[in-house]
């Protein structure tokens, strides 16, 4: 296919791989990106908010021509009960000015494609429709990769695995084990079209402002999962994410979970009158710090979702960890090239850099989240119900004297869950969510 040998082979043209390629090619290295989709983004799905704090360091003016949907100025976290919600939200007008809080809704089919064009313009070679199936070994050392096409052998000094959550290649080379059902979330999502004016009116927005709403509690029929709504220019992204284990245990199909969420009385009015445009599904690695793969070996580095870099706490971040890890792998490749040594000894620098960055620091902070939620299923089934009774009871206008109502509700609450139960759960959650 291509005769020459490259300094860097990047497998996967998502945010992590494209960032690695961009940094390496800018420093003068020869770089090839192999992407299985017809274009970058053709196979990619997310919520969501693209966090651009690292991207903006690499490309300071990106927001002038990137296909951004809306600037996220309003975020809401909501605990759904069976027929209502208790929520907290912020909205800051300053987030509608440069640098827009580095938070934009995007559609990946457009955004990743744009990013890949930037990487090509910088001088990297991008081959699309290229599925990488295996490595090329010579005397036990990795010399390149095999693409599923005629003459698909590509040679290079270092292979950056940016092949996303399923990373069959990192598994093949023994860098990470199979994903486990309890720490893998499957998310299904629909794109719903609605006019720009209606979106602005319905969500209380001006111009390019956008919202990100996350729903917990009784979002997916009491299973361990959450729902989301994000506004794009003239579409809305709506979806749910549930651990595979929880779906199996509750015998719920992801589409049924999505339908339940869309039909929730809180959600229904937000999506009324929309027209469905696309239905998609994607996995999220939710194992956190404890499940991160081995990050490098001779001639290999693993970046982004392939390494398990997603922070699924209240912040819901993956894109910025992908971009940062890609950038650091690109920088490491430059140093390896300068030394003429691509062995594990030199590539260990990549892990050092990650440890000093927010990627591993944040993941370490939230390392207990998944286990805590799994051990406290009451958060998803029992608590939403009793909290609803308490809060809706407290605000029901019925002439019952306030002191009597408060006392009654408090005793009713305590019958259902001891104060120690609440405090224990609250402490557990506080430790893992913020």
């Amino acid at each position: 296919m291509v005769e020459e040998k490259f300094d860097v082979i990047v497998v996967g043209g998502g945010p992590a791989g494209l960032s690695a390629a961009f940094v390496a090619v800018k420093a003068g290295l020869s770089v090839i990106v192999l992407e299985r989709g017809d274009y970058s983004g053709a196979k990619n799905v997310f919520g969501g908010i693209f966090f651009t704090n690292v991207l903006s360091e690499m490309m300071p003016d990106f927001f002038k021509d990137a296909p951004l949907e809306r600037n996220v100025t309003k975020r809401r976290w909501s605990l759904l009960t069976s027929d209502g919600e208790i929520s907290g939200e912020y909205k800051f007008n300053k987030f509608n000015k440069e640098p827009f809080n580095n938070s934009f809704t995007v559609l990946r089919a457009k955004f990743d494609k744009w990013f890949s064009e930037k990487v090509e313009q910088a001088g990297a070679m991008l081959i699309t429709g290229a599925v990488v199936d295996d490595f090329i070994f010579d005397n036990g050392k990795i010399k390149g990769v095999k693409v599923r096409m005629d003459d698909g052998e590509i040679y290079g000094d270092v292979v950056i695995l940016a092949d996303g959550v399923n990373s069959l290649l990192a598994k093949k080379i023994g860098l990470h084990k199979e994903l486990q059902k309890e720490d893998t979330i499957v998310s299904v999502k629909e794109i719903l079209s609605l006019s720009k004016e209606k979106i602005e009116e319905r969500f209380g927005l001006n111009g390019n402002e956008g919202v990100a709403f996350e729903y917990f509690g009784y979002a997916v029929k009491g299973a361990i999962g959450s729902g989301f709504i994000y506004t794009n220019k003239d579409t809305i992204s709506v979806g749910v994410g549930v651990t595979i284990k929880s779906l199996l245990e509750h015998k719920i199909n992801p589409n049924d979970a999505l339908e339940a969420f869309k039909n929730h009385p809180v959600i229904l009015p937000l999506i009324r009158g929309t027209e469905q445009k696309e239905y998609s599904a994607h996995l999220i690695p939710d194992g956190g710090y404890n499940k991160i793969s081995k990050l490098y070996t001779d001639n290999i580095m693993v970046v982004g979702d392939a390494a398990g870099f997603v922070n699924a706490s209240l912040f819901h971040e993956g894109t910025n960890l992908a971009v940062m890890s890609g950038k650091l792998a690109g920088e490491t490749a430059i140093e390896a090239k300068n030394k003429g040594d691509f062995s594990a000894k030199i590539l260990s620098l990549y892990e050092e850099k990650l440890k000093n960055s927010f990627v591993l620091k944040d993941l370490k902070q939230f390392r207990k989240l998944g286990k805590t939620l799994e051990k406290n299923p009451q958060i998803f089934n029992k608590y939403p119900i009793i909290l609803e009774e308490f809060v809706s009871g407290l605000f029901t206008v019925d002439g019952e004297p306030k002191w009597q109502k408060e006392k009654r509700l408090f005793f009713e609450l305590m019958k259902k869950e001891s104060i120690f139960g609440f405090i224990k759960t609250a402490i557990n959650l506080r430790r893992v969510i913020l």
Partner: protein
Amino acid sequence: MNKFKSMEDKLGLNKFKPSHETHLKIRKEVNGKKVDEKNLVENVLFVCPAKVYTYDENKKEVIVSFENCLECGTCRVAAPDEVEWQYPTGGFGVTFRFG
């Protein structure tokens, strides 16, 4: 309320380019033991968000509608021993226009 509720209808919204060859297979045997296909579909592979796997009572085997696959990987993680999973060859499968 949105028009399409069932998965079958929703899949019609997407752009697919089906290959003539499946990228998904169910192993007949795992560790020398015959796979109980009916049980596998009803209790595990029902989690596929595109209902790719159904059990044919007449033929007594799993039908794999690979052309509807959203390439998410859920079935791989749910049944790692039974599902033989690959990406479709370049140029085939689903192409998201929004993502």
